């Protein structure tokens, strides 16, 4: 069990794994473990989403026609806020305990680590939101035609939101209380997703097909999937020099 004789303990060029750092699936597993162990943070955005939406009819009145009219927009705006609220913690823990600094020292591009984080973030916030959406449709008297587009648009759209929001989270990670600033930075960038997300539901309610809106969301998703983790990685390197 003793240490190796002098000299043998120093690496040559051989051991690649430790130098290149954890692989993508190790990163994913680790993020998933971390996410599942922070249960309150996991459930809070969902609870917020449902609670605020439940308050809406109380505030504006329970007329079914009015609620139907407002449903796509309200549900979408709330999904946006719920994602935004959870976004703040995306890199915070890793920044504070120094593991973000360790990640940045690895020779592998930050793209992989950042995308792993975003993927897990979407899995624990966006996906449950999309799964919850039929329930909310029920609360808001959404016509049958609206359920499928609502779920699909939330599924694609929340992934876009997670991706775009990661840039803001990375830019503000060095700040102690970034909450409102993060919202201010990211909200304008969310506009296209909001438009096409609620647009898909509205189109379905107006009796039209909604494949065009979903295609646009998919286009935003793939483009953001390529660019957002790159930008967030660059932002992390900038924030580490604070």
């Amino acid at each position, binding site marked *: 069990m003793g240490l190796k004789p002098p000299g043998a303990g120093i690496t040559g060029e051989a051991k690649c794994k430790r130098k*290149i750092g954890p692989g993508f699936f190790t990163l994913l597993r680790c993020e998933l473990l971390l996410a599942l162990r922070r249960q309150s943070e996991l459930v809070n955005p969902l609870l917020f989403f449902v609670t605020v939406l439940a308050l809406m009819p109380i505030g504006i009145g329970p007329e079914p026609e009015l609620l139907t009219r407002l449903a796509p927009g309200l549900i979408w705006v709330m999904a946006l806020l719920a994602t935004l609220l959870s976004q703040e913690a995306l890199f915070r823990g890793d920044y504070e305990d120094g593991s973000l600094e360790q990640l940045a020292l690895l020779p592998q*591009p930050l793209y992989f680590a950042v995308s792993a984080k975003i993927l897990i973030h979407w899995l624990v916030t966006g996906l449950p939101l999309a799964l919850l959406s039929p329930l909310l449709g029920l609360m808001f008297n959404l016509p049958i035609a609206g359920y499928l587009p609502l779920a699909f648009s939330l599924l694609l759209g929340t992934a876009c939101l997670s991706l775009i929001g990661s840039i803001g989270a990375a830019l503000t990670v060095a700040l102690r209380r970034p909450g409102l600033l993060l919202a201010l930075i990211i909200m304008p960038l969310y506009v296209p997703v909001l438009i096409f997300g609620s647009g898909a539901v509205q189109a379905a309610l107006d*009796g*039209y097909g909604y494949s*065009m809106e979903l*295609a646009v969301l998919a*286009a935003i998703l793939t*483009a953001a999937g390529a660019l957002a983790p790159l930008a967030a990685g660059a932002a992390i390197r900038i924030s580490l020099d604070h």
Partner: protein
Amino acid sequence: MHPARRQRLILILILVILSSAAVGFATYAMRSNMDYFYPPRAFAAGEVPLEKRIRVGGCVVPGSVARAGDSLDVRFALTDGEAQLTVVFDKILPDLFAENEAAVVIGKLQQNGVVRADKVLAKHDETYTPPEVADSMKGSAVCLQQESQGVGA
């Protein structure tokens, strides 16, 4: 291959795949015609779907505006020079709304071939012209000429 270099290669591959997918989706989205704007002749040709939210643009036919005595209901006809279309509206018309001026209507086409409007907008004149120049161009020709441009655009 050196693992760091291999990872960079994988990254570039991912970026290429994702961006070409984005281009593909965007092209698909662009191709679907999402303009629900119809001229009155499209109604005559039967191209307009029933009971869906659509937009109609045209000139208000002179003398066609008829108000009901006991309610706000108003009925008028729109034309694009080829066909006419009857519109029913039950709210207050905008100030700029006038006969022989362009108007845009949002509403649903009903079984009887009449459009029930949710909203009527007086289309604004886009040009800025001194009075004397405008005088020489007065008449329905102006409205129709603009309308054909508007529909074409």
